[in-house]
């Protein structure tokens, strides 16, 4: 599920610009009824957010020594806050994610960013948290100790 086409600019450890083209042949458009208005072809926000999250992951993983996903580990989308989706992308548009690292810890990273289509800003992500987890955790009932017990 790779939702980034290309990194177009990066300052290692600081920010990244990455793009993803939205095309009419994508799986998300395959099961739609005939004759729907164009507005129904808005690119799903879930995929758009995942695409931005993958740009954040690339920024973090390229940041330097120690930022890697080892054997037996996976990088998971852990949390996000204050996301606003004020516009939409359509087939033929190119998503441009501009993402900045806010914080890096031993087990993950926090980023913020925006998504643009040309000069239209269509999304703002206040914060997005990605976390490394041992893959074995995926067989267990709960995620690892870093998130267990955090009550809201």
């Amino acid at each position, binding site marked *: 599920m790779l939702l980034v086409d290309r990194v177009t600019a990066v300052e290692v450890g600081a920010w990244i610009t990455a793009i993803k083209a939205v095309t009419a042949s994508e799986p998300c*458009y395959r099961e739609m009824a005939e004759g729907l*208005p164009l*507005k129904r*072809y808005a690119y799903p926000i*879930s*995929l758009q957010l995942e695409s931005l999250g993958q740009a954040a992951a690339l920024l973090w993983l390229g940041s330097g020594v120690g930022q890697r996903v080892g054997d037996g580990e996976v990088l*998971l989308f852990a949390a996000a806050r204050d996301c606003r989706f004020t516009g*939409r992308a359509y087939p033929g548009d190119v998503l441009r994610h501009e993402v900045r690292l806010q914080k890096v810890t031993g087990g993950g990273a926090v980023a913020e960013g925006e998504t643009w289509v040309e000069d239209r800003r269509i999304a703002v992500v206040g914060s997005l948290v990605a976390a490394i987890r041992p893959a074995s955790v995926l067989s267990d009932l*709960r*995620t690892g100790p870093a998130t267990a017990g955090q009550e809201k």
Partner: protein
Amino acid sequence: MTPPPLSYAAPLRAVDRVEVTPDPVGLRLVAHKRIVATDPYLQGHFPGRPVFPGVFVVEAVRQAVLTALASCDGFDDGALPDLCGLRSVRFLAALRPGDELTVEATVSRLLDEVEVVARCRRSDGVEVARITAAFGYDRSGPSGA
């Protein structure tokens, strides 16, 4: 039986069924989705260890809300409300093929948006996500449309 075609773009069918009931603040919905290994995108996420992507839990909430609003409101054709904000999303535990996701949410009007507060659980009772989202009408349609 082939499911009916969708009236909006979607990465997958993220809900199997939705139950909608009135609630003091608006609507309450309960949606169910069985995670299957053949769901789109699962094979690469991750190779050998399929995990239902967290954003698809968001997608499940989205599809449950769209289904609930369509059954209770009259819309103009083309004026489908959709996700316009995620105030808070936390993914707490993994969902894997064979699990069943249950989304319980309250849906209420807040000014010109719809606020959704969702708790998502796995078939063994473990909470997998908490999502607070806003839905609204996109006023910035494709140019020329």
